[in-house]
């Protein structure tokens, strides 16, 4: 009997059980296939004056996200702001003329419109679900290669970077490989929802650290050139910010933000203990804009904001979002801890000027 079973298994082997890695591969492939329909290529013809009355024309290629079925596209502002002509290549092969419908310099997000119907808009992930260590799947157009993917992790949150003199806050850091042509592309979670939109990358190529870093020491051989274009660190605009900006750009073509003119940082353990606050609570004011709303309200450097508009301050990103998303002008009540006592102040939130 046993011999017969063995013989049967030999001639009709059963399917080997699916491994965990195979399951992950399938999931990733499914996400890429599903989201590719919502990732477009943006082509921007840019003209610059080379000498008086002589123009250099060139085409920049980047990526974009479909955010509405009737032709709303989000992309990177820097790539399209100066464009004389814009086109969008859809995943189905159509190449359509696009119109610049608004942009936000604070986040470098642009909103384009194309005349198309039945597009597949991307779904935004809940901002609270984004955490360090989660899978990050980039879908974009590196070097013009449409619908390419790269898989990595969300390797950091709340990052601040400088790009051409502009400061960008609250970015997601990712290990997914980002290449030229990816700006405006998708960074998705394992459900295919937008975690972020590709913003920029920091390239550690050995050229940035001065002449001393131009070579590397090879044991027994001496010096060798550092490889050009080494590892890079990718950054993306988080879905929470993106959704806020997209809604306003789609509604009015511009983004208005609340502003109070303060810089804050988390409390260290000593100050937190002295102020009798739990971990994460409170925001220490480190700087105030001269004659800004916070300074005019009477807040001072060293104050700790413990309550904002009736709610306790639990983390700085949430506090900033509440200020930024406030419809200015608006007056809110702020409670601050100052030298062992609390003070209540009326803070007039103003509209932030575009940088």
């Amino acid at each position, binding site marked *: 009997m046993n011999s017969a079973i063995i013989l049967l298994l030999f001639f009709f082997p059963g399917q080997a059980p699916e491994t965990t890695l195979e399951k992950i591969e399938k999931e990733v492939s499914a996400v890429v296939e599903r989201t590719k329909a919502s990732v477009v290529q943006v082509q921007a013809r*840019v*003209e*610059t004056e*080379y000498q*008086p*009355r*002589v*123009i*250099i*024309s*060139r*085409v*920049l*290629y*980047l990526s974009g996200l479909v955010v509405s079925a009737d032709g709303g596209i989000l992309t*990177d502002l820097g*790539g399209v702001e100066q464009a004389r002509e814009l086109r969008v290549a859809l995943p189905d092969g159509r190449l359509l003329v696009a119109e610049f419908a608004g942009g936000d310099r604070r986040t*470098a997000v642009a909103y384009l419109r194309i005349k198309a119907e039945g597009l597949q808009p991307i779904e935004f992930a809940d901002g609270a679900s984004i955490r360090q260590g989660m899978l990050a799947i980039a879908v974009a157009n590196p*070097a*013009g290669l449409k619908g390419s993917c790269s898989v990595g992790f969300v390797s950091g949150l*709340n*990052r*601040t*970077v*400088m*790009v051409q*003199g502009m*400061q960008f*806050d*609250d970015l997601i850091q990712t290990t997914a490989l980002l*290449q*030229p*042509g*990816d*700006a405006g592309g998708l960074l998705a979670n394992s459900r295919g929802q937008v975690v972020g939109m*590709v*913003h*920029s*990358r*920091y*390239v550690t*190529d050995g*050229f*940035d650290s001065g002449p001393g870093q131009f070579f590397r020491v090879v044991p027994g051989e001496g010096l060798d*050139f*550092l490889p*050009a*274009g080494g590892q890079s660190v990718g*950054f993306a605009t988080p879905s929470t910010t993106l959704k806020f900006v997209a809604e306003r750009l789609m509604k009015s073509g511009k983004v208005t933000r*609340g*502003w*109070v003119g*303060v*810089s*804050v*940082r*988390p409390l260290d353990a000593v100050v937190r203990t002295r102020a009798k606050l739990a971990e994460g609570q409170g925001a220490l004011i*480190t700087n105030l804009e001269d004659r800004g709303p916070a300074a005019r309200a009477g807040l001072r450097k060293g104050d700790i904001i413990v309550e904002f508009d009736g709610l306790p301050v639990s983390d*700085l990103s949430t*506090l900033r979002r509440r200020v930024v998303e406030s419809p200015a002008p608006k007056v809110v009540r702020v409670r601050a801890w100052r030298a062992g006592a609390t003070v209540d102040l009326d803070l007039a939130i103003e509209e932030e000027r575009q940088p």
Partner: protein
Amino acid sequence: MNCEAIRDLIAGGAGGEATDHERIAIESHVAVCVECARDLAEVRGLLGNLALLREGDAPAGIAERIWQGVHAAVPTPRRSTILAWTLRAAALLVLGVSVGYSTTSILRHPTSRPMTTEDSMVDEMKATYVPRPLEVTAGMESAPKSPGPMLEVVPEGSVFQAGTGYYLPKVDQVLDSDEIRF
């Protein structure tokens, strides 16, 4: 790499003297930076102009005029030593001025022909010299090996197609700070 560092590399890169590492750095930068792409084009144009300076391009008769100056200044054996040295210095001065004149003429009119009515018209039109159409993203490999006719007169309103670029902003600095502003 920032624009300042790239500009330092561009002169060598445009002349084909860059290392592979430098060339890749330049290529990747000019693909996204129009300012540096423009600088690269200018340097290439300048190198093209210099390459046109070759024997036989001097204006007709310039050699005769130089030698006439030299002959006139050559001392005879009867003249004093002081006079002889003075005349030698004068000869060198004449030679220097002549060479300077010829070089300037070649740079302004590379074909070394006399100024024509057409040239005057071009000047009146305020036409400008530019390098051949740019190949900023096509890479250094596509730069012409021999300069060839690098200069051409371009009427105003000309538009040059300067290739393509793939866009992704490069972070200049990552700030290690937990301070936020609003």
